[in-house]
């Protein structure tokens, strides 16, 4: 069943798929960023595949490599319970999938907040967990754990002064 499903994907997007492998009982597909949106859209909308649930979306920072970031999608088909992990290597910019799965809206905001990966055409790309005036993206490997300003005193600004 699963082989057939992935066969359909390879049939349609063969040259844009870097690798398909089984790792610890999980299927991992690495795709190229140019057609990432079409591939995910195909996985979501195709009658036979219908991966209708985005379980997770997150970033990984491979600092020093090129392209630097990896965005990981974990999708699941409700019909046969099949889970597939799709991975894309990117350099700070990627097409949004929030129109395919509403869950991607907040998950992409979080990825933007933590890694600074910009999602094109996202309806509301703001920081989600950190304050809007925060400096930097903390899950990047070059961000120190204690932050950039841990040894500086807080700036106290009273409302009357501003």
């Amino acid at each position: 069943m699963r082989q057939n499903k992935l066969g359909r994907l390879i049939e349609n997007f063969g040259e844009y798929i870097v690798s398909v492998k089984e790792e610890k009982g999980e299927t991992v597909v690495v795709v190229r960023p140019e057609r990432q949106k079409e591939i995910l859209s195909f996985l979501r909308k195709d009658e036979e595949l219908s991966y209708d649930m985005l379980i997770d979306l997150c970033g990984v920072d491979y600092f020093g490599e090129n392209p630097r970031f990896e965005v990981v999608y974990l999708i699941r088909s409700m019909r046969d319970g099949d889970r597939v992990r799709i991975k894309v290597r990117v350099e700070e910019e990627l097409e949004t999938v929030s129109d395919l799965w509403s869950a991607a809206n907040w998950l992409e905001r979080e990825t933007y907040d933590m890694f600074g990966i910009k999602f094109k055409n996202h309806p509301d790309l703001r920081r989600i967990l950190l304050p809007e005036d925060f400096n930097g993206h903390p899950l990047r490997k070059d961000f120190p754990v204690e932050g950039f300003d841990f040894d500086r005193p807080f700036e106290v600004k009273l409302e009357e002064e501003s």
Partner: protein
Amino acid sequence: METTFMTINMGPQHPATHGVLRLLLELDGETIVRAVPHIGYLHRGIEKLGETRTYHQALVFTDRLDYTNGLSNNLAYCLAVEKLAEIEVPKRAQYIRVILCELQRIAAHLLWLGTHALDIGAMTVLFYAFREREKVLDIVEYITGARLTPSFMRIGGVARDIDGEFAKKVKEFVKDFPKRVDEYETLLTENIIWKKRTVGIGAISKDEALSYGVTGPVLRACGVYYDVRKAHPYSSYEEFDFVVPLGKNGDVYDRYLVRINELRQSNRIIEQAIDGVPEGPFKAKAPEVTLPDKDDVQTDIASLIRQFKIGTGGFRPKKGEAYASVEAPKGELGFYIVSDGTERPFRFRIRPPSFLNLSALPRMIEGQLVADVIATIGSIDIVLGEIDR
């Protein structure tokens, strides 16, 4: 005629938002036109901190995610690391894990039941629910030594073995509990005021719930059969006989019914597990990963050295990645861990169920009344410690 909407802030300091959730509501009279949740007030950077600790040390962070549910969080993390390091957990440890996780689910659902009813105005239920929750926490405290942050699971097994006294306490509780659930039900299930406040409120359709990535009782209340314990069984759940309660309308009342039935099912699972705990070790045979027994550490020099070595240096799983999830009381809680071959996780990703459940909240409350917002927030059962991480 010109219409102006009124914008009000609900929270972050509001008892019915169950933590520090801030909702920006735009109102047309009493009807909600737009709702924007603001989160992050409890952000502690657990995903970042996890990358700076060894695999054993990072376990304690997981207790602090959904703080009503420490044991399931521990389990989800341990499962992911065990998958990564390819460790086989012995049956006895798996059964102990199941018993503890289901006890924790009962405690978490009782906390939800009490506070949810209190939010809507039924105060009595709180005292009933907390009476049993106290008993569960006593059992958890007896075996783990803590009520809120147990940190009891270990990579490869559990921290210590269970004894006859524990089994006795659990059996006593399990025998008594179904009658107690009946009591809660007499207070609420057919209560006309309760039904008026909950039936048809905060509903979301099946397709939308799936698209929003909603999981757990909120998704099952829409009638979707998705429970990680059945769909991707872990820790021997396939050996237990239980049903997954489903709702129909996806409203606040159905979520209540689903959770009440889950209390009974959890009780059934514990009943089967406590009678069937197999003999054997409670820790995996993987000396380079698991910590030695406390008794050995105090009497045997080799164990002492191993304790020191693993405790300070950790262990090194092979390069790779693993995702493992459990059915936490709130929904699917997953850990995605990437290893680069060192003793610390390269990426420590937490898939929080409440985060995605909350992202569907605006969809549920738009067009409804202000008073129903409280009922809806209560019904999706969020914990901000997990949303903000």
